[in-house]
């Protein structure tokens, strides 16, 4: 019987395993060093905040795996020997495969700062990172102050986490607005203000220069490039993630930033596939990045590669871009492409509406000439995925989209709606233009 070995039990690897099981009788083994069972990485924050226990993060009950004949092995893969189709594990034992799926995910990206080795410096990606945080920042007596480097989605999660334990948090953000490498300026500004309203000391246009330690090797402060010294007991490094590929050196599997794959998610070695955060497309698909470290893309690659492995080859051809996040109390959803000021396409125009209470806004991107709807960001307002997906597929005009926006509403019943305000603002903006 064909043996499919999957390295990594995150959303990508587990989705692939489930779909291979649905479509075949192959022997399936998932190897993970991080945890015995699949858990939702995006929910790690809720364990530290006391909303859930770690076991509540597991999307499937423990009996699910044996019931579906998916073998789990907790081990660290040290080397991949593609010639002999063998994996060498850290404890010295080996495992052979017929088909190998690499779904090893990401590790925090760091940029050669001094002091990274000090106690109290950490990222927030893995289960081990969460355990380390529980040690480094159990409460505000052991850890009165923290500095978070980087203003992205993990950074704001870490800030919210530490805030629940009344730890004083300072964030260093290189840009003028929060996550403005991705968000248009107006959206980024609103999020910045919201984060500040939660008593987070948000420092814009500041970058880390060096982490300073004490005699015991613990963090005592950081220094910014502008020369500010900020004392702290914890430094959270949240300047993005990079593919986990170091163990592939010498395996013959071609890598760049990530593991290079074609549209069938195959690597340059026969019977070896890569999916999720660790995979890198030879050429970017549409406007997407070649490496996509997002829950949803990991899942989609898992769904796709399973078909290919089970005999119905499908190219990875994701549909319209979508994503979501939450910044403290403000939910964010995006459908299609709304680019930041820096990355905005020459043809791209934005319509922006913000509620006076500063907790709700939308930005709609459209084509300047054709007025085609390109994408939407919503903050504090929920939108219906299938309606927006349909509008993007059928190339609706921005005018139609704004006019019918209420149809895409996904807020709970009885919520106040703002579509008439949005429509009025839109006609106002159009008549000026």
């Amino acid at each position: 019987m064909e043996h499919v070995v999957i390295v990594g039990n995150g959303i990508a690897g587990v989705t692939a395993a489930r779909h291979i099981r649905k479509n075949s009788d192959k022997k399936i083994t998932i190897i993970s060093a991080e945890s015995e069972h699949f858990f939702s990485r995006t929910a790690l924050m809720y364990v530290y905040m006391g909303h859930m226990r770690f076991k509540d993060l597991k999307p499937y009950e423990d009996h699910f795996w044996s019931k579906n004949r998916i073998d789990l092995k907790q081990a660290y893969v040290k080397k991949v020997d593609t010639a002999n189709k063998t994996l060498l594990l850290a404890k010295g034992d080996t495992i052979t495969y017929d088909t190998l799926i690499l779904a090893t995910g990401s590790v925090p990206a760091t940029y050669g700062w001094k002091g990274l080795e000090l106690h109290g410096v950490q990222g927030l990606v893995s289960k081990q990172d969460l355990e380390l945080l529980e040690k480094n920042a159990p409460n505000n007596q052991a850890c009165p102050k923290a500095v978070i480097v980087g203003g992205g989605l993990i950074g704001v999660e870490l800030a919210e986490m530490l805030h629940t334990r009344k730890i004083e948090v300072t964030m260093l953000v290189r840009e003028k607005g929060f996550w403005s490498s991705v968000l248009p300026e107006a959206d980024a500004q609103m999020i910045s203000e919201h984060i500040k309203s939660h008593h987070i000391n948000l420092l814009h246009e500041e970058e880390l220069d060096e982490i300073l330690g004490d005699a015991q090797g613990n963090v005592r402060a950081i220094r910014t490039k502008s020369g500010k010294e900020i004392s702290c007991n914890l430094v959270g490094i949240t300047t993005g993630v990079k593919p986990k590929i170091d163990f592939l050196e010498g395996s013959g599997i071609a890598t760049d930033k990530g593991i290079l794959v074609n549209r069938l998610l195959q690597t340059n070695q026969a019977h070896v596939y890569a999916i999720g955060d660790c995979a890198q497309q030879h050429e970017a698909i549409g406007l997407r990045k070649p490496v996509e470290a997002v829950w949803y893309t990991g899942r989609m690659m898992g769904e796709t590669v399973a078909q290919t492995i089970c005999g119905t080859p499908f190219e990875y051809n994701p549909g319209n871009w979508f994503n979501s996040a939450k910044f403290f109390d403000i939910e964010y959803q995006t459908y299609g492409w709304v680019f930041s000021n820096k990355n905005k396409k020459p043809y791209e125009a934005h319509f922006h509406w913000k509620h006076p209470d500063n907790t709700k806004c939308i930005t709609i991107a459209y084509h300047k000439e054709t007025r085609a709807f390109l994408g939407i960001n919503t903050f504090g307002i929920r939108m219906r995925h299938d309606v927006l997906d349909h509008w993007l597929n059928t190339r609706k005009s921005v005018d139609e989209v704004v006019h019918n926006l209420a149809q895409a509403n996904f807020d709970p019943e009885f919520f106040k709606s703002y579509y008439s305000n949005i429509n009025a603002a839109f006609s106002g903006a159009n008549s000026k233009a």
Partner: protein
Amino acid sequence: MSSVQRDMSLTGQPPAALNTIQKLATALGVGGLLLLVLAIFNVRLMNQSLWLTTALTSIFVGIVLFSYGAYADKQAGIKNDGVWFKSISNRGFLAWVAGLALTGFYIVLYFKAELLGLNTEGENSGLIALFDPLSKILSGNPASQWFVYGTLYTIAILGFGIKFLWKYRHNRYERLRTLSVMFFQTAFAFLIPEFMARLNSDDFNLPYYDLKNIWPLNYYNFEQYRVDGFISSGSIGLALLIFGIASIFVITPILTYKYGKRWYCSWVCGCGGLAETAGDPFRHLSDKSEFAWKVERWVVHSVLVFVVVMTTAVVATYLGYDSEKYWLTKDVFLIGVAVFLTALFGLIWLFKKEELKQDARYGAVGYLVIVLALIGIHFSSGSTLFLIPAETLRTTYGFLIGSIFSGVIGTGFYPIFGNRVWCRFGCPMAAILGLQQRLFSKFRITTNGGQCISCGNCSSYCEMGIDVRAYAQKGENIVRASCVGCGICSAVCPRGVLKLENAYTEKRINSREVLLGNDVDLMDYLNQN
């Protein structure tokens, strides 16, 4: 320089303590409770009415002040920080103390009310006497243990209702729903029945009737003394009797078809009202395992069968020995029940067979056979009805289900098993509404395409123990018999994935092989297979 001793702090000690306002509020509330406890021992330090007013006000203000301390300085949004760290909400020491105290209270209330000072022959004493003045204002009669319980129950729903309103002030669905249960408890469960008692005289004898309390939750509604009471009370009484029958056979099916069982369970019902307000801090304690779901289905439907058999037996018995009093005869009634159940079952089988899982079908067939066999045995033997005397069935049901299950376990164990144990495992009304919600209703929780990140907040905070995430991560809408539509899964979802709604019945579940967002061709290929 750092003075942190890292080796001293290996385990986390997140802030779970109360702030000053909350401490004051706790002292005030507990003080009010102590006044009530003192009254049990006939301690009287001041005028009865003043004593009662002080006690109830302290409890109410204590709860409201506690909520102020908890939420006033926080921004609107989800407030679950530290839920699993606090002793009261993580099955810690305080949870067990609270659970045992509540359980003890229920045991005394149901079985030893004389300990509270109940005296049906003469003057009340103790705690119950303390409530006499209030009871006399409302109904004109002295208090009973049920009046004491009803008053405290209403105060709990109002006080903790305000807490809930504060906690979910950003969510209009939650606010309206909570105002609704607060209203129905105060008006329908507490005040109206007391005022109705004022109408009674020698030839006008309305039974105590909480109009929103529908059979079979109100399992005693068609017992002889009540039916006689209704009939003796002229057209008002008759109207109420007809309303009681119409509630379950006409009103309930229509509203459940349009809105799902939530119209009752989380907007109107008193048990639900307490669970959603005082019980809210314990919602995450429900068991989400598949095993618990299996137990739930067998237990709750067994209770439903039990209550149908019991009520049929009780009604048939008095129709039998007092036959000259009623136009309905026992035989017609029994044949009517048999025909109704067979027709109902036949229609479900005919139209909805596909939607019933294997074990549900076996269970349904089994139960129908049992009920019909019992009615059949009655006609062939003619003597003891249903093998066991109806009175034994009635008292057994009242003891096991009415008292032990709904009160002692259902509410007493809030801090251990969660706040909806009764509603989930025991309530026959929920079972009927649930069957209907599963098979004939426009209600569902819609999953938002591919946006789920499997975080588990929805499942964790589902008080009914539904593994919401299991559906959401498959892109499948949630259509579950037990869902009471509290809306908390949708509220706690960080990615805007869930929405409670009433819509077309076609494609209500809308299951997909591959989630929205992936390759259109792949979705087409898989969804066609």
